[in-house]
């Protein structure tokens, strides 16, 4: 029973580690007490004053075009309407794309269970991860009411338009799953 349990735990741990490397980390924060029914229209807001995003993404017209298209589609699917030109939108959206080096160190204790020999050393993997952050701001009060993000390894994605488009689509559609439906 016990060795089997250890083995199963090791398998679960390994699966979690692998899943962490291969997939996107998508999540969001919001104000849970907020009444969303007052919001109907949206538009693109001015960029925030944070340090500029990574030029490999933010200066790429293809990236901008696909990201904005995916966000507009996701908003429309939730029942929000793009504000007509000259209108007063209820919501302002902006996004931010950064790339940073990340270091993953495999947990030593869990790994020892998995391999059971002294030969195993902590495995460190170094990779570049992008973070796409999408902010939704209440236009009247200029307060952030929702933030979604997706993080993933950019290897093989940068410079490959097909993979980049699929990454954007998956990132945006998954992060918007948590957004309430417009009334």
């Amino acid at each position, binding site marked *: 029973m016990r060795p089997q349990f250890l083995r199963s735990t090791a398998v679960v741990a390994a699966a979690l580690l692998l899943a962490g490397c291969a997939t996107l980390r998508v*999540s969001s*924060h919001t104000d849970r007490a907020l009444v969303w029914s007052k919001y109907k229209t949206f538009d693109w807001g001015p960029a925030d004053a*944070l340090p500029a995003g990574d030029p490999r993404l933010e200066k790429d017209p293809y990236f901008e075009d696909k990201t904005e298209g995916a966000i507009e589609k996701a908003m429309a699917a939730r029942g929000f309407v793009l504000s007509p030109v000259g209108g007063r939108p209820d919501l302002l959206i902006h996004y931010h794309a950064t790339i940073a080096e990340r270091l993953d160190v495999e947990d030593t204790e869990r790994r020892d269970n998995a391999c059971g020999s002294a030969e195993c050393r902590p495995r460190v993997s170094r990779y570049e*991860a992008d973070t796409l952050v999408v902010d939704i701001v209440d236009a009247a009060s200029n307060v*952030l009411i929702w933030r979604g993000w997706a993080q993933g390894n950019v290897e093989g994605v940068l410079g490959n338009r097909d993979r980049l488009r699929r990454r954007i689509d998956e990132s945006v559609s998954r992060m918007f799953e948590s957004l309430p439906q417009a009334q």
Partner: protein
Amino acid sequence: MFRCTRLTTIAACATAALILSGCATLGVHSYLARDADFAHYRSYAWVEPAQFATGDPRLDNNRFFSQRVEDAMDMQLAGRGFEKTSPAAADVLIHIHVRADRGATPEEPAALFVDVIDRRTTSLAWRGWAEGGLDDVVDNQRWMEARIDEAVTKIIARLPR
């Protein structure tokens, strides 16, 4: 059915282990300036930075994070008998900042810093900080809030009085 139950148990154990390992990594420290006069500090005010920059794109200007820290701080400081007042009248000014995780580097884990600044002398009177256990909970808002509450409670518990 048997297999299913066992799998559920394993999953629950794995989850519990992950959560516990997260808790265990929260290290709390503080620094007290030699000339700090905590016996006379009664009131405080917040110094709101124009930008809440952290180095973690998920947390930069994220009011769901910064507001939670402020709320937790207000509660803990009230519990310690501090009165919240305007920046012009406060004995001390409180400033928070975050050092983001550079990606699971054990040498420099993500940390939440609380600075207590003497308003009259404008020098740092006290700094408390909690390291680790932050990066992995940001992706779950409720876990993040619980971790912020835990970190702030432990930081303020070290405040001299």
